[in-house]
């Protein structure tokens, strides 16, 4: 087993599927999400962005950078590993833990925006809500995702969506990010 954070969703997929978002589409989507977060929150006060490793953390950092451009305020960014809270923990070999870094101010009474790359079954987000429960009590939790591909197993929805992508369950959606995969793209096949 590799000690490093093993590649999560879809790294095994080549980027040769149909490209649904290119680098510029992703940039525009994140800019819009950043504005929507600010609009909904009426500013950047009390905001904390928590990315779900690995790609969610990079997305959260990009959103924070855009908010800094618009508002001139550095919003705290952290990461939240959900591995031990997964409902299928017992069904697979023990998984490598990924970093959890909670910003110094904590999450108590903050508006936490969870950030992830793909929203699918909703199970990751349920795990994230459980994980957060052990860390603090936010004033509110919102969800931002780059791609919502549908097929929810749980009553969970996103507040901020980069792209709604109708898929069949047989299809695979792969998000690739510059910081992690060397290029920005969302492909489907």
């Amino acid at each position, binding site marked *: 087993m590799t000690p490093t954070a093993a590649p999560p969703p879809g790294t095994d997929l080549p980027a040769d599927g149909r490209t649904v978002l290119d680098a510029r589409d992703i940039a525009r989507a994140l800019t819009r999400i950043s504005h929507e977060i600010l609009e909904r929150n009426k500013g950047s006060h009390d905001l904390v962005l928590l990315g779900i490793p690995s790609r969610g953390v990079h997305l959260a950092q990009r959103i924070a950078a855009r908010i800094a451009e618009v508002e001139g305020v550095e919003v705290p960014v952290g990461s939240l590993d959900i591995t031990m809270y997964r409902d299928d*923990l017992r069904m697979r*070999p*023990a998984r490598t833990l990924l970093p959890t870094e909670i910003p110094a101010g904590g999450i108590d009474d903050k508006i936490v925006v969870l950030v992830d790359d*793909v929203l699918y*079954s909703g199970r990751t987000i349920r795990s994230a809500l459980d994980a957060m429960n052990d860390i603090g009590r936010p004033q509110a939790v919102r969800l931002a995702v780059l791609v919502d*591909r549908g097929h929810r197993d749980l009553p969970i929805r996103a507040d901020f969506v980069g792209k709604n992508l109708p898929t069949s369950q047989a299809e695979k959606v792969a998000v690739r990010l510059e910081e992690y995969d060397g290029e920005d793209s969302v492909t489907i096949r």
Partner: protein
Amino acid sequence: MKHLLSAGDLTRDDAELILATAGEMRALADRPIKKLPALRGRTVVNLFFEDSTRTRMSFEAAAKRLSADVINFSAKGSSVSKGESLKDTALTLEAMGADAVVVRHWASGAPHSLANAGWSRSTVINAGDGTHEHPTQALLDAFTMTRHLASDGGGLDGRRIAIVGDVLHSRVARSNALLLQTLGAEVTLVSPPTLLPYGVGTWGVETSYDLDSVLPKADAVMMLRVQRERMNDSYFPSVREYSRRYGLNARRMATLQDHTIVMHPGPMIRGMEITADVADSDRSVIVEQVTNGVAVRMAVLYLLLGGSEPAIGADETPTTEETPA
């Protein structure tokens, strides 16, 4: 690998995975709720046939922080003192549904028997067997060294570690020698000739009888307790002579490099192998070793029990692909 019996069974990948996982577990100590749900519904039995304070408490804290149920068993005041055999004790634990047995035994090899005799299906974790091995101690020592000596993220490659004292009776020394070599460190055992084990030449480590010549080159110095309870012979003329030649005092500490850390697995005998001013100095990481012990044992328990099968010692790379949510 379903069990953790020897530090020598760990590949470099296994050891690094445990240390990396322990790093995440360590962060838990700073959170308001020091609990994770990973082992909910699992039962961990601490089976201690030999006195222990920190190891038993450390395993208990580790299992509880992972939400496992913990049953403590010590040989004193149990049916073992009435003459029950290890086998019958094991069958009892099996009948109680123990998922893991953490075993400390005065006999070298007892955990191995427990794991391989077919008496139970539990995962066995060696918490110290006689003068043989103590793998989780070696892991927590390596974790502590990594935090102090490998801050550049480079690991322990080429680091020089001196292990000083009663090597003959020390399971800590053996496990450390095995693990530290796996991690690429250079180990020197320093001890009087009478306290070096037979066959130490096959361990692949350096040995020395002269502490003063080893100290200036060391990156970490690990002092061992003289285990008089295991000695049925005189191995050195007097306590005073031992501590003069092999004890770490302020004068010797002054010959260390600036970054060198001083370690001790505990319990230490102040005035024997280590003086009080050294044990309480800034270089000493002895208290931190205890804190790190809980994190490392959490990592071991999680990796052995957390999933459907153990994550260390597996032939194939583990599945880390996730169901996108």
